């Protein structure tokens, strides 16, 4: 219509088709962009570290190195455990907390038991609070580095070896190290709605 000859309906249709084709390209491109974000986001996290306020993720193996032990102060490390919904396991640390010197190598054990009648593969995801300590908490060995498989009824004690870098700021006197175990097979895992306790039935 914007052309000088309003009668050229064919011309207008062609022009419309061109515009529409371009707009569809944008739509498809953006749909693809959403999926491209999956690898791009992972890359951005690994290279740019945009997802870690703490810098290094808590799940990394630290190089075994000898650090001078700072005997002048003690840090309380608390151990915490969580079972994600849909994992019929028992999981808790064997001791709740420990007093450690920065630089001192520490070992702690977690107890885990498969309560179901099926073998289950699960993955533990670690976290450190306060987050500022994350990069100073060096793990030498951890059950969270690999997936754990437990046979029906099997129980196990799993060690964690770590130390706290003496470079950590003096203001951090208590640190919490927590783990959440997750079932890697979501479909086999019971749905949370089936745990009677978790959802009340609708009246």
């Amino acid at each position: 219509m914007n052309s000088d000859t309003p009668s050229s309906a064919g011309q207008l249709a062609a022009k419309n088709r061109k515009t529409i084709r371009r707009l569809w390209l944008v739509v498809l491109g953006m749909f693809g962009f959403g999926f491209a974000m999956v690898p791009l986001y992972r890359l951005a996290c690994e290279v740019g570290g945009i997802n870690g306020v703490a810098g290094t993720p808590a799940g990394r193996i630290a190089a075994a190195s000898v650090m001078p032990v700072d005997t002048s102060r003690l840090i309380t490390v608390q151990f915490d455990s969580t079972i994600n919904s849909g994992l019929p396991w028992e999981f808790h640390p064997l001791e709740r907390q420990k007093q450690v010197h920065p630089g001192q190598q520490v070992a702690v054990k977690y107890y885990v038991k498969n309560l179901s009648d099926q073998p289950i593969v699960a993955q533990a995801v670690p976290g450190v609070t306060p987050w500022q300590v994350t990069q100073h908490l060096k793990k030498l060995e951890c059950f969270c580095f690999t997936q754990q498989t437990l046979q029906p009824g099997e129980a196990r004690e799993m060690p964690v070896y770590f130390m706290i870098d003496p470079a950590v700021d003096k203001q951090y006197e208590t640190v919490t190290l927590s783990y959440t175990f997750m079932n890697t097979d979501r479909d086999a895992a019971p749905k949370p709605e089936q745990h009677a306790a978790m959802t009340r039935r609708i009246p």
Partner: protein
Amino acid sequence: MSVATAHDDHHDSHDHGPPKGWQRWVYSTNHKDIGTMYLFFALFMLFFGGAMAMYIRAELFMPGVQLANPDFYNNMVTDHALVMVFGMVMPAAAGMANWMIPLMIGAPDMALPRLNNLSFWLLPAAALMLILSILAPYLFPGSGGPVNTGWTLLPPLSIQNGIGMDFTIFAIHMLGISSILASINIVTTILNMRAPGMTMMKMPLFVWAWFFTALLLIAVMPVLAGAVTMLLFDRHFGTSFFDAAGGGDPILFQHLFWFFGHPEVYVLLLPSIGVLGLVIPTFARKPLFGYKALVYGMGVLAVLGMVVWAHHQYTIGMSLFATNYFMIGTILISIPVGLMLMNFIFTMWRGSMTFETPMLFGIAIILMFSFAGVTGVMLAVVPADMQYHDTMFVVAHFHYALIPGAVFGLYAGVFYWLPKWTGHMYDERLGKIFFWWTTISFNITFFPQHFSGLAGMPRRIVDYSIQYTEFNMISSIGGFLFGLSHLLFLYIIIQTIRGGKKAPDKPWEGSQIGTPGLEWTLPSPPPFHSFTQAPVVK
């Protein structure tokens, strides 16, 4: 601007009216009829979403769990938002676009009339899906609990939800396709169908606003569609896009959602800014101050709006660099927003103003929306947001942004154009009563939520501790009054459709001032086919 119209009397011979009965609507390719259907659909959804809001306010009237279980409460919070955003504001704005854009730019219809029919008819289907998602726990016992994630649909909860979530996802797919199709149609119409002489820079602000809105939708709706598709795959096909146990990252969904979600709030806002850009000059009887600045401002807003999404995610533990970037970007947004408001204020400056209902809404929007801008800047500041995040303060912020910024803008548009659409003047006295009733009750409802939020009351939780009782009671009483006021709104609309004083072609004295559209050159209501011969704008 002078307009030579070639549309009137001479084409009676080939002006066939609309087909009769239901076929007129189901097979409609007429932009006015489709616009009308959009508007009625939105009106229906307004009451549907409003009913859910009434339940929410009734539940929160007192501490404790009174009316239903927590999952049902969270289901209502989720669907209230989805219905209001996708079912009410967007269709209402699209209805106005359908009705007005061709009339304003002198086009005979939308560029793609049949696609237009499809984009409308996807909506009732999507609404049906949403209703099914609410009913699913009762229709299919054992299929899982209600959808209780909130409108953000965050995993892992949304992965664990029952079959209701699948209906929700399909509803979002349909709504998404509908708005993408509508947007393509609108952009094509604006670019190619303008009457000779109607250059881009002569277009009414409403058309510009919808131009940017449609571009935003085309850019971000597909990303939401992709995100919920991945969610669907995680739920049923064993992928782990967002499942931490399988190596995925639930945070990625948040990024994808808010990459869509923040531009979406501008999608809701911009059409109403467009309406303001017509209402304010009309009733101030002065051309728009800084028309060009407003157009560029909206463009800047649209572009900036695409790169600040993670201000919704300050608390997830992003790197400090990323957090700072999003904070600065978000604060920058207030510049174009402030500029637009200033332009409207300067338009009124020394104008000869009259205060008909649309103008009352216009002025109230400027005041109350600025308030949302202020709380927005508070929320943009990271250390402050660490406190405010997920409290009622955020709820207060976005209701001040969305109800004046989007909903009242649409009400202003309804009152501004009802005479054009129906051929009748609405009852000005009732319009004014409706304005004061809604505005006062809106403030009673949401103002106290700033305080309960600052005091720490979390959002999306069915119960609260007793020190928030007074704030919530005030809020609930305001909420019921606000809900009730809409019965008057419905009454006014029905009354105006059925009769009333005959509306002249130019119902408003100032409607030709500044950059008006060509709609005022047509009779009220306009004929079924308009501008079959292109008018010439000089």
